[in-house]
């Protein structure tokens, strides 16, 4: 949850430069207050509010059946959102995730149809994801090519490979115990059993991003690559491993997709990359890098997932669904900017008004920029 320390710097100096070093409340919020009012927390509130609303007013929503269907639907996006958050925080992007999932699915189908042991099939498919991620990492991190261009390329490349691997066929005869495990629920809670694995992966990514020096380094990297290099962050290595992680998790999502729908096809998970990126951005991760959190991204995925689910429950057309998702995303990106603008304007206006008192009390330094603008 914690924001990078660097985020504090500009605001701390601009807004309360005159505060003595001994005042820990320099920014006005620390600890719990900061967590409770962070940008990513807002989306968590929105999620909670929406779930409460749906539970109260949408017939049939408040039941374990909803939890099960809803989570089964969002698991692929939820998984991929985790590495995507880290990658976007470093200021890069990975558009090839859904294609890697599709490639994994196709590979699974072909290997299983060829009579390989299912355990071996899963391992090879996962390895394919690791390799696909490493290929992205090689191009982006090692060769330093722009990630947008590289992953648009691999988006097409991996989907193309999926078609080469499995062609027009679909493989459906996966072992029933395995496929039913992937749709099974934990007792009467309605929570899918696979959620245990998903939660584990989420905790790993959360800990890595928020509680390790490596994670701190990613935020720094997103702010300024040059500065990150100067303070000794191994930029190439960090980015490379992020893409490997992204490829591996995408492969997991592909495996899940194949077994959940008992269907291995080349077009599985197509278009998922945009859903994931939209959800991650909605969850407060900045597309410019340097800002964001795992809980925020998860809330973003769950919010979009829950809205989709309730709309379907209400039999509202998918046309409304995509319009709503789009509007929500734009609102979440634009609203903070508009509010920032208004705040700045109010700020300047207030300083102009309070100028005489401010000078009298010797606070010139505090509002140095504001005063100069005022004059």
């Amino acid at each position, binding site marked *: 949850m914690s924001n990078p320390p660097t985020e504090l710097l500009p605001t701390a100096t601009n807004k309360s430069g005159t505060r003595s070093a001994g005042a820990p409340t320099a920014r006005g919020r620390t600890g719990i207050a900061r967590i409770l009012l962070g940008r990513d927390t807002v989306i968590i509130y*929105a999620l909670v509010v929406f779930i409460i609303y749906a539970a109260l007013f949408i017939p049939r929503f408040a039941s374990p059946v909803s939890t099960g269907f809803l989570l089964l639907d969002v698991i692929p996006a939820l998984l991929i959102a985790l590495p995507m958050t880290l990658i976007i925080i470093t200021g890069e992007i990975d558009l090839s995730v859904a294609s890697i999932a599709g490639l994994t699915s196709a590979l699974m189908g072909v290997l299983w149809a060829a009579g390989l042991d299912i355990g071996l099939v899963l391992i090879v498919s996962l390895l394919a994801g690791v390799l696909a991620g490493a290929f992205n990492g090689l191009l982006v991190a090692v060769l330093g090519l722009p990630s947008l261009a590289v992953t648009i390329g691999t988006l097409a490349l991996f989907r193309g490979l999926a078609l080469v691997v499995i062609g027009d066929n679909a493989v459906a005869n996966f072992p029933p115990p395995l496929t039913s495990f992937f749709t099974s629920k934990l007792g009467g809670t309605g929570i899918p059993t696979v959620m245990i694995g998903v939660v584990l992966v989420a905790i790993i990514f959360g800990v890595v991003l928020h509680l390790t020096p490596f994670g701190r380094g990613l935020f720094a990297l997103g702010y300024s690559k040059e500065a990150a290099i100067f303070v000794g962050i191994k930029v190439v290595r960090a980015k490379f491993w992020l893409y490997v992680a992204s490829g591996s998790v995408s492969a997991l999502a592909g495996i899940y997709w194949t077994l959940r*729908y008992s*269907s291995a096809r080349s077009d599985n998970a197509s278009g998922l990359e945009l859903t994931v990126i939209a959800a991650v951005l909605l969850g407060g991760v900045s597309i410019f890098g340097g800002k964001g959190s795992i809980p925020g991204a998860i809330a973003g995925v769950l919010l979009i997932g829950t809205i989709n689910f309730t709309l379907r429950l209400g*039999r509202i057309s998918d*046309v409304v669904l995509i319009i*709503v998702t789009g509007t929500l995303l734009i*609102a979440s990106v634009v*609203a903070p900017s508009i509010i*920032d603008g208004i705040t700045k304007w109010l700020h300047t206006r207030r300083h102009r008004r309070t100028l005489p008192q401010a000078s009298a009390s010797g606070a010139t330094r505090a509002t140095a920029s504001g005063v100069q603008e005022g004059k």
Partner: protein
Amino acid sequence: MTMQFIRHTKTRGTRRFLTLAAVAASVALVAGGCAAGNDAGTGTAAEGDLSITFIPKQLNNPYTDVVLGGGKDGATAGGFAATEVVGPLEASASSQVSFINAETQAGTSVIVIAANDPDAVGPALEEARAAGAKIVAFDSDTNPDYRDVFISQVVAKDVALIQIKLLAEQIGGSGEIAILSATANATNQNEWIKFIEEELASNPEYAEISLVAKVYGDDDDTKSFQEAQGLLQAYPNLKGIISPTTVGIAATARYLSTSNYKGTVALTGLGLPNEMRPFVKDGTVTAFALWDPAQLGYVAAFAGKALANGTITGAEGDTFDAGDLGKREVGADGIVIVGPPTTFNADNIDDYDF
């Protein structure tokens, strides 16, 4: 100074609050939409009568709209209290699953589905059946394990044979031909293509005809148009194209009619009279085939009614009343046939409006 500081705190707090408010407002907007849509649903369900939901391959497809129109008529005539149509915007394998789940949760009595993938919808349909729903597949079958009956427009072989017969007549019985289909995995198209290939191989009348290519327009207008263009560039000796899908044949006809292949390269397949009318009139297309899609939905609704009432179980030999169309019988593998395909040409096309 303290005042100054408090002001800052307040402003930043306010800012967060405003962000929250903005997001909350968007959410409320969405939720409002939900609630409005949902009232109708609960109103009808409360009557405790039978409900039917159609899940087509995708929404906003002209052919599907006609089928669904017939389905709604059938549902009303059959006495269903609530009729719904839900479905994905793109015809991908797994996209229908969450819609089936929502219907399971809604306790719908009959689910009528055109499967995008015969197996991907399986587990979800099993759950729906476990919850008491009857499953009618129409247009494109699911794996027979997952449904009670399948309503087929026509006998698959008849559809295949009429298309190859029409094309053979139009190209004079010899030359290179190609097929422009829907998606590579589409159940019904693949079955017809299989019969066409068998017929070409076995029938001596078609010995001089060679099938040189099969391409897939994914039931997407632009993609089909480009595939048609690509076919004619890749095979300069191409004499004719069969497009066993309404989107494909319309897109191909549009391409041919604006190119210099118009009138020299024959086109036939399955098309909607309203979409194909201009191309039949301008000479691009001589004749094509189709059944009346509205009847498909109509029979599906009546089959669902009979299943829900317990009149039939979907076993071979069961018969049920299909309203204006009279009686229909369930054949082997739970398949119900609606009727023979119709051939449309310049003489009769104006008699049809769908």
